[in-house]
C-alpha cells in the first residue's frame, strides 16, 4: 500500500515538479508568475496536439514546452517591460491560457495518444522496494530527476545562476555590472514557462493520455505555492511536489480499495494539504524570499 502510494505520488507529482521548478527560476529572478497555470494548460494541450499529429511524444514535449514559453512571454512582456502588476498579469495570463485551450482543445477531447509509457530501467528497477517506486516511470519523470539537480547546479554554481539570483535580490547591482535585469528576468520567466509547459505535457501525454478542458485544475497555482513552501530551493520543491502527488494518489489508492470516503473530500485534500504545509512553514520562520520578489508581495498591490 505504501509502495503503491509513493509510486503514485511520483507519477502525479511530476507535472507539478516541472511547473514549480520553472516557477522557482522565475521567482529567483524576482518575478512571480501565476500564469504558470496557463502555461501548464497550454503545454498540456500543445504537447497533446503535437503528439496526436506526429505520433512522437518527444516532439510533443518540445511543442508543449514552446506553448508554455510563448504564453509566459506575454507575462514577461507585461511585467518586465510594461511594469504591470505581477499578480494581476499572471492571473490574466492564466485566464488567457484557459480560454485559448478550451477553444482549441475541443477537437482533441475524444482523441487518444500512445504517448509516453512507463519504462522500467534495467537493473535499477529490480532493487527491492525503491526500484518499483522510483524506476518504473515514463521518460519525462526520469528527466525530472535530472532536472532538479540541474536547476540547483545552474542557480548556485554557475555565473548565469549568480546573475539571475542577483537580479532577484538587487537589480541595481546587476545593472551596474553591465547586465540588463530586464533581459534576465524575461529569460527566467520564459524558461520557467517552458518547464511549466513540459509539466503540462507530462500530465496529458504521459499521465492521463487524454486532453480534458482545464485539466491542470490549479496545479500551476499549487506549483507557485510550493515554491514558497520550498523557500526557493530546488530540492525542497521536489519534496513539495511529491507531497502534493501523494495526496493525489491517496485518492486513487483509497478508491481502488473501495474505501468509504467521499471522493470530494479526497479531491480537495491536495489543496488543503498544500495550504496546511505552507501555513506551517511560513509560521515557523520568515522564509528567505528574494528581495525584489518581497517587494511584489509587500508593495502596494504588487508591481
Amino acid at each position: 500500500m505504501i509502495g503503491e502510494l509513493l509510486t503514485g505520488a511520483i507519477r502525479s507529482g511530476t507535472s507539478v515538479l516541472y511547473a514549480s521548478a520553472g516557477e522557482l527560476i522565475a521567482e529567483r529572478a524576482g518575478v512571480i508568475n501565476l500564469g504558470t497555470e496557463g502555461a501548464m494548460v497550454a503545454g498540456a494541450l500543445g504537447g497533446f496536439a503535437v503528439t496526436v499529429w506526429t505520433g512522437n511524444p518527444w516532439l510533443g514535449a518540445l511543442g508543449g514546452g514552446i506553448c508554455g514559453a510563448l504564453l509566459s512571454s506575454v507575462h514577461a512582456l507585461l511585467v518586465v517591460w510594461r511594469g504591470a502588476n505581477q499578480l494581476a498579469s499572471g492571473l490574466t495570463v492564466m485566464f488567457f491560457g484557459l480560454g485559448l485551450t478550451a477553444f482549441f482543445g475541443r477537437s482533441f477531447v475524444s482523441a487518444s495518444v500512445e504517448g509516453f509509457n512507463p519504462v522500467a530501467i534495467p537493473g535499477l528497477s529490480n532493487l527491492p522496494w525503491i526500484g518499483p517506486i522510483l524506476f518504473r516511470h515514463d521518460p519525462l519523470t526520469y528527466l525530472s530527476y535530472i532536472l532538479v539537480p540541474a536547476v540547483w547546479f545552474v542557480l548556485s554554481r554557475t555565473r548565469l545562476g549568480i546573475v539571475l539570483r542577483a537580479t532577484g535580490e538587487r537589480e541595481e547591482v546587476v545593472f551596474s555590472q553591465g547586465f540588463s535585469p530586464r533581459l534576465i528576468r524575461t529569460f527566467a520567466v520564459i524558461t520557467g514557462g517552458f518547464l511549466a509547459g513540459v509539466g503540462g505535457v507530462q500530465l496529458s501525454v504521459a499521465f492521463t493520455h487524454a486532453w480534458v478542458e482545464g485539466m491542470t485544475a490549479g496545479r500551476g497555482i499549487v506549483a507557485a505555492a510550493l515554491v514558497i513552501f520550498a523557500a526557493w530551493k530546488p530540492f525542497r520543491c521536489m519534496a513539495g511536489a511529491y507531497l502534493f502527488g501523494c495526496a493525489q494518489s491517496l485518492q486513487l489508492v483509497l478508491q481502488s480499495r473501495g474505501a468509504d470516503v467521499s471522493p470530494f473530500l479526497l479531491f480537495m485534500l491536495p489543496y488543503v494539504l498544500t495550504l496546511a504545509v505552507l501555513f506551517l512553514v511560513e509560521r515557523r520562520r520568515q522564509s528567505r524570499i528574494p528581495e525584489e520578489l518581497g517587494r511584489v508581495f509587500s508593495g502596494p498591490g504588487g508591481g
Partner: protein
Amino acid sequence: MSNLQKSDPPLITRTAVAPRALPIFRHAGSGLRRLCRMAAVTVTPLVLFALFLLLVGVRPFEIYVAMLRSSFGDAYGFGEVIVKSTPILLTALATALPARAGLINVGGEGQLAIGALFTAAGAVYWISEWPGWAGIPVLAVVGAFGGAMWAAIAAALKQYGGMNETITTLLMNYVALYTVGYFVHGALKDPASFNWPFSPSISDSLRLPVVAGTRIHIGIPIALFFATMAWWLLSRTRFGFHLRAVGGNPVAAELAGLPVTRLQIGVLIAAGALAGLAGMIEITGIEGRLRPTTGATYGYLGFLAAWMARNDPLRCVGTAFLIGAITVAGNALEISSGLPASSMHILLSIVLLAILASGRRERA
C-alpha cells in the same frame, strides 16, 4: 512588519538606477493624449480578437454585429445582460475593495460558491416555511456570512501564517468547488432528483421578486446599492481614506499609526460577504436550487471587471455590465454560429492584457 527594514535604503538608488517614470509624470499628458490612449486600449483588443477570429475562419465583423444584436437587440437579451451583470458586479466589488487596500482577492469564485451553499442549506433546512419578507433578508445575511467565513479563512492564514492572500484565495476556490460538490452529492441532495447532483428547490416564497415577464430581480438594485456604498466608503469616509493609505504605502500607514493588519483583514472579510451575497442572489433570484456549477466563473469574471475598472467601484458598474453583455453574447454565439463560449474568455483576457500593458493603474 518585516518590510520596514527591507525597503529602507535602496529606494534612492533604485530611482536613480532603474529608470522607472515617476508617478507625477505618468498621467500628466494632455487630455488629447489620454483620449488617444484610451482609444488604443479599447480598439487594440477588438482588432487582435478580430485577427484571431479570421485565423480560425470566422468573419469578425459578423460576429461583432451578432454580439451586439444578441445583447442589446431586444428586451429579452438586454434583461439577460442585466441579470448576468449582477453577480459579476458584486464579485467585482469583492476584488476592488481589497485591491484598494493593497490586497488581491481572487477568491470571489469560492466565496460566491460557499455563499450559495449556505443560502441553499438555510432555505431548504432552516427557514423553508418562512414568508419572503422575513426569509429573504435572513438568507441574504446567511449567504453573506458564508462568503465572509470563507474569506476569513484566507484572512486568518494571512494574519497568523503570513501567507499571501492571492495564492490562498486561489487555492481555496478549488476547496470550495469540492465542498459544494460534497454537499450536493451528499447531505443536500434532492431525494427526488433521480441521482442528479442538485439540492431540493427552495420554496417560492423565498425567491426574489422579479419584474413580470423577465428574469430581472431585485438583486440588481441591491448590487447597485453596494457599488454606491463602496464608492462612498472609499472616497468620502475616514475608513476609506485609511484603506487607501494602507494600499498606497503600508509602511507609511503603519508609521502613521493605522491598524494595517486589522484594516486588511476587515476589508477581505467584507469582500467575502459581498461575494457570498452574490451567491445568495444567484440561488434566490435565478437558479432556485444549488447545483455543482452554481455561479461558476462569476468570481473570475468579477476579478476581470474590477481590474478593467482599475478597482474603482463606480466604474465596476460599467465593466460588470460590459462583461455581462459579452457573456450573454458568447452564449448566443455558441448556439447560433458554433463559436464556443470560451472564445469570449479569450476576448476578455485580451482586453485586460491590453489594459495591463497600457501602463500602471491610476491610484486615487
